[in-house]
């Protein structure tokens, strides 16, 4: 059975989905397994990311259920998520999470 959708969410906890085809501004986002339909707010090329929920400035971008970057501006659902509104993690942001985790282990 074919399930028609135009975007893919790699993990239920993600706040972005990957466009599976070139998305046009105005069309509805249909994400596999999700009932809510979000309106695409700008043209987005396939393979690129679209926000599926409101992401605040300095908020985490979640893909694969992991934090893949930090928002550098507010991003509303349906908007393109890429280098102009996302930065990579700073060293201290990355390392802390593991050290905290290790500490939990040792305690």
């Amino acid at each position, binding site marked *: 059975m074919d399930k028609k959708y135009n975007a893919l969410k790699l993990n239920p906890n993600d706040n972005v989905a990957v466009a599976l085809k070139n998305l046009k501004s105005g069309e509805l986002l249909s994400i596999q397994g999700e009932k809510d339909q979000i309106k695409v707010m700008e043209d987005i090329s396939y393979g690129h990311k679209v926000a599926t929920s409101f992401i605040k400035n300095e908020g985490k*971008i979640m893909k694969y259920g*992991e934090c893949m970057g930090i928002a550098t501006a507010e991003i509303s659902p349906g908007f393109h998520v*890429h280098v102009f509104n996302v930065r990579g993690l700073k060293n201290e942001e990355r390392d802390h999470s593991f050290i905290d985790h290790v500490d939990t282990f040792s305690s």
Partner: protein
Amino acid sequence: MQTFEGYRRPNGSIGVRNHVIVMNTVGELASFTKKIAQLVPGVIPVVHQGGQAQFPEDYKQTIRTLKGTAGHPNVSSALFLGMGDDPLAKELEELLKDDNHHVHAIYFNKDKPVSEVLKEGKQWLEEAMDRSKTEKTETADVTELIIGLECGGSDAWSGITANPAIGACSDFIVRDGGTSILAETTEAIGAEHILAKRAIDPEVGKKFLKIVKEYEERIKDTGEDIRSANPTPGNMAGGLTTLEEKSLGCIKKGGNSTLMEVIDYAEAPSKKGFIFMDTPGYDVESVAGLAAGGAQIVLFSTGKGSPTGSPIVPVIKIGTNPRLYEIMSEHIDVNAGKIIEGKNTIEEIGEEIYQKIMATANGSMTASEKHKNQEFAIWRLAETI
């Protein structure tokens, strides 16, 4: 529980193939090794240019790789060709005989004409082939399988379709009591903290961080910086935004299971479950390391299409996009491009890969086996002396 018919070896391991192989211990004998293999149909030559004039780190790695290859559960018998009183051939023969493998070493030396050696080798291989045909299979289950995870010739879809599907499959295998080994240390740079968090204990997590850091330093020594060079402009055009995202796309082949152990190149895991092996991203060297570590089957995602395989291990190719499957189906076993077309979910393709693994374990040939893609290379750590 999923089962397959495999070959039980005297040391207790189980193989999904029953190969007879011939290997050189020193580079000088590579040509002869191929020549002897040609004399007996079905024999697979495994040749390399290491084994001599190497620093200890390379020598040890060569021994580990050759031993793991010759003593692999997919190998019924292995013949070594050595030179004079070749210490490497002797050591390998003894190590493997201690572990009850059917191996033999023959030597080129001054009191034996070359043609004699050729005759002796041919005879041993013929007997080994006959012997392999009498070996019976027995039923085994997925708890005895070790699956290697690899990607090569990646494209913008790799991290979206094939790799997450391999990850789903890896999680199924681990759930069912089997083992999967993720490799390619280079490709974890940038997301190492994420994988480290999944470690079973801090020691395993720290070891993983250590090998990633070492790899990064080695690259820096050549004047390159992975962190600042990635994602590349091409990656960005394809939709990748950060280094974390790019590396996540690679390491998601390992799914979401707990990281049980971090092992050296060509080392066998001592635990079941999800494992990481320190290998380069260079496909053929990485696959050779995974195989030598005991993986009976390797999963290999490819976006641009890569035909490579292994001399002893079936490699299952998972294509990332529909077009690749259309134009290069001769090299692809599973089409994860169906995820893009909305025909299947990631989990469904994960399940399809799982079924492909079981079919392959039962003897079904993979694309790389059909095309005799038997590439082999050992990861080098120093210049030749």
